[in-house]
């Protein structure tokens, strides 16, 4: 076994990368939000106008974004909970295969999934053409693509593994004996779910929900490619670092939406903590 000093020495390269790229960059990025831009140059001063602008000019878009992100996080977490529950309690010998599929879809394919949904949801896409071939509809449903629904479907699909895996990890700790004894003592399936499974899986549910929520709040590609006219907050942030060249405003927008998102997550935690409490 290494000495403790040797241990810290080995961690050093990773810590330098983390500190030099993440911590230092975050501090600089935060400082930037109080600066301003004059004639296409970033000027170091102290102003709150970027935050004022964020909370006046972009409030509507922020509201839409947060609502959609809540919808996505809710659907991904609920579906993910069910899938994790299937793996843990119902799938039996199929469990490793189901888990494997969730893991495969976790690594890789973010852009390809958006692309796939774009081709699938279009008027001449796979879903419409399949529905027409079966004879369920006569004319393609045009509202499938370029709508908030398309964004919710696409992101829920992309984020499902992010919800499944933490929830499943927290369900692993529940033993069959606990469930069996509760059932033997007369608890209904619903009671077992409410009083044992959900409270024990709570850390995983919270982790999954937070991950899905935060990624949705900051996503800009999905609404850009399948969302049509709607504009989510990330679509307003990204151009501040490109064509609009207003880094301080972009930074203030990023930190504002992050702060509001964390506040919403705190509320969700408080609400979730009440479930299953005797």
């Amino acid at each position: 076994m290494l000495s403790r000093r040797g241990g810290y020495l080995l961690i050093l390269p990773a810590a330098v990368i983390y500190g030099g790229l993440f911590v230092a960059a975050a501090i600089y990025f935060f400082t930037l939000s109080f600066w301003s831009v004059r004639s296409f140059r970033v000027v170091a001063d102290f102003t709150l106008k970027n935050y004022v602008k964020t909370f006046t000019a972009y409030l509507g878009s922020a509201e839409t974004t947060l609502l959609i992100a809540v919808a996505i996080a809710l659907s991904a977490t609920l579906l993910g909970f069910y899938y994790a529950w299937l793996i843990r309690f119902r799938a039996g010998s199929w469990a490793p295969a189901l888990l494997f599929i969730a893991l495969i879809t976790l690594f890789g394919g973010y852009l390809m999934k958006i692309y796939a949904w774009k081709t699938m949801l279009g008027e001449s896409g796979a879903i419409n053409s399949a529905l027409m071939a079966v004879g369920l509809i006569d004319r393609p449903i045009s509202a499938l693509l370029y709508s908030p629904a398309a964004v919710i479907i696409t992101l829920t699909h992309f984020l499902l593994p992010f919800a499944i895996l933490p929830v499943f990890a927290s369900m692993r700790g529940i033993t069959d004996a606990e469930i069996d004894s509760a059932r033997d003592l007369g608890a209904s399936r619903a009671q077992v779910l409410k009083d044992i499974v959900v409270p024990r899986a709570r850390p995983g549910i919270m982790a999954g929900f937070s991950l899905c929520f935060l990624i949705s709040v900051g996503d800009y590609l999905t609404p850009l490619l399948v969302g049509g006219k709607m504009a989510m907050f990330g679509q307003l942030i990204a151009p501040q670092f490109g064509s609009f060249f207003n880094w301080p405003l972009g930074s203030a927008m990023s930190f504002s939406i992050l702060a509001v998102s964390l506040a919403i997550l705190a509320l969700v935690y408080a609400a979730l903590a009440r479930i299953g409490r005797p």
Partner: protein
Amino acid sequence: MSVTTPAGVGSLRDGLSFRDLAHRIVGGIFVLVLLSPLILVVLFAFSDKAISNFPIEGWSLRWWREMLDFEPFPTALLNSLKIGLAVGVLAAVIGTMAALGLVALPARRAQLAMTIFALPLMLPPLFIGVMLLVWYLFLKLQLGLGTVVLSHLLFTLPFVIIVVYARLASFDFRTVEAARDLGASPLRAFIDVTLPVIRPMVIGAALMAVALSVDDFVLTSFTIGGGNTLPILVMSSLRRSVTPMTNAIGAMLIVSSIASTLVALHLTRYRG
């Protein structure tokens, strides 16, 4: 079906219950929905038609030929491979070092350190992307493949550290001490004793890092400064009109990332 659960007992008594059947059907739909977008991209890459839809009337390799003739394709492929390889090797070396260092610390402190290392994974990639862009420009770094590799290390290192640490946590370090007592240098002891034990995890985690790196679009597009990678090609064709050639590039990305993930999962026995 676990026979110890009440439902299992029920199904032994009266065969497959309605409830079990319903769960099976819904589970099947889940699997179908999870996998079908990926399967369809691969399927349509071999379709003869110019539109990606059903029915597929004939099979052909024309989109693959078009991809090979596509002028920016070779550079994009090469860039993706360069970045992926560099990220895989660097993340494996630096991450394994960190994991070795962390096992020397008290478990609670090591867990805390790993949670902190994993923080960049919890933030939206857009925030990390723009944050790194302005930071690199502040440092006056030349944007290019190098800055992309740095950016990718930030979100691939935690995977390597966590996977390798998990194996080391149950490793009997007395074997290393024995080697040292018999006169092996620290490096010799590491190469002959520790490395063979953790090698599958290191390689597997490196493959995960490669898969994540090759797949990344957001961080890459903000920090590459110009130049193409495969996801950037996919994105630019997505913004213009979609041709089925994109299916071919996409199919290649999907198959390679699933293949490396499969090998990685097999080697590391990582299960979430």
